[in-house]
């Protein structure tokens, strides 16, 4: 059956979630107050960030990290914390100091403007 509306007669029986994997459609990127910024020059492609990211927000293609999914990244900072010190390829910046969000963005950390958001 399909969900046709949000009244009690429209909702699926037993409150089942009918579409598998629809967590992907719940964009939580706007929860971020801090943003990870990836420098591909420094990256050693160890994929620790991908292993540890709790939100599956590290983009990987053909076995290589290619960027960050800013639509889902909540800015927890685990990727930056797990990135090996010798690489330090991920830094956290204030979301308000970031450039426009885009997956795989390589914007370097902006120096914070003295003022607030």
């Amino acid at each position, binding site marked *: 059956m399909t969900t046709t509306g*949000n*009244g*009690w*007669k429209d909702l699926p029986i037993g*409150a089942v979630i009918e579409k598998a994997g629809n967590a992907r459609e719940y964009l939580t990127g706007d929860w971020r107050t801090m943003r990870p910024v990836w420098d591909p020059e420094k990256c050693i492609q160890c994929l620790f960030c991908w292993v540890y990211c709790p939100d599956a927000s590290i983009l990987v293609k053909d076995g290589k990290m290619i960027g960050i999914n800013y639509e889902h990244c909540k800015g927890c900072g685990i990727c930056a914390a797990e990135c090996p010190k010798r690489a330090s390829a991920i830094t956290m910046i204030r979301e308000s100091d970031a450039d426009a969000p885009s997956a795989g963005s390589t914007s370097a950390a902006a120096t914070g403007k003295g003022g607030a958001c």
Partner: protein
Amino acid sequence: MGKRVALTGNEAVALAMKQINPDVVAAYPITPQTEIVQYFSSFVSDGQVSTEMVRVESEHSAMSATIGASAGGARAMTATSSQGLALMHEMLHIASSYRLPIVMPVVNRALSGPINIHCDHSDTMSARDTGWIQLYSENAQEAYDNMFIAQRIAEHPDVLLPVMVCMDGFIISHSLENLNIEDDKLVKDFVGPYEPKQYLLDVKNPYTSGPLAMYDYYMELKRQQAEAMFTAKPIVQAISEEYGKLTGRHQGFFETYKLDDADIAVVVIGSTAGTARSAVDHLRAQGIKAGALKLRMFRPVPREEIIAALSPLKAVAVMDRADSYAGFGGPLFGDVRSWLYGTKCDLPVVNYVYGLGGRDVIMEDVLKVYDYLNKLVNHQVPLELVQYLGVRE
């Protein structure tokens, strides 16, 4: 009387527990109750109470530990909500049938599924047949006061029944409000020491608790247990009055608001009663004779008093913050209707199931209920016994 402070419902209840200073508290966390045992644990670690705090692995164990401690001779408590209350369900029957004077704050939260951590009364309503006395609090002040009254009721030698002190999850438990708190000595003297006639650690007078009873005795023992609920009713009244004289805050079985000359009224439990009073004032300003009845004691049932209070009215709506899934409305509705049946109180009594899973109930929602009652009284709408307030069709 007392000192004016601002506390959340959970802080107020934890403070009451501190002032009671029970011998044992068994603790297991569940939102929105967790803060009660959390605050209490800091009283324990700061040495402000002499309570033995037992951290257990589930609510079933929490009630089991409380029962064991209480049967042993200790003044014992725990606190819970929703799934926790449901998990300890079999033990609730044990506590009441063993006649143990356990007081337990229950922060009302919806039962899953779907999973929901917000306020409704499905948890304690599901436990209404467990033989526990049930007192419902409208706000932090009442929750605080009810704790002391409950302790006295539970331990009264002619009652010896466990008592649930209920308050609305998040709406009251996590909301900071004003209340008056009493000083330690006043409440300590009011509650008094716990002096059980019989307790398992009294090795000079050994006995066994928790027997098997076959069909030749079970029924008599349960009839005896039922008698305690009959006996409890006037004792609840008396102890509430005693507390009222001491503090200036009187709580009876229920509180009526502009009911004396009212044509239409709602019967409601918990925080929504306050919102209902605002609705009554709004209607009275328009010349509509509306009133409200806030029920505080749900077990045992204040049947005669409710009949007397509701008889003069023209129509009543019972508001249920829980559904019975019986195909005929909510638990409070079913109860109230049956209390009134066959009496001189034959006015139309309808049900509104509302506020499930923490659905916010604003004054305008309550006004819709009164609007229906008004139209019903004026024969402008057909009688609809059960309605669901604010649900999307």
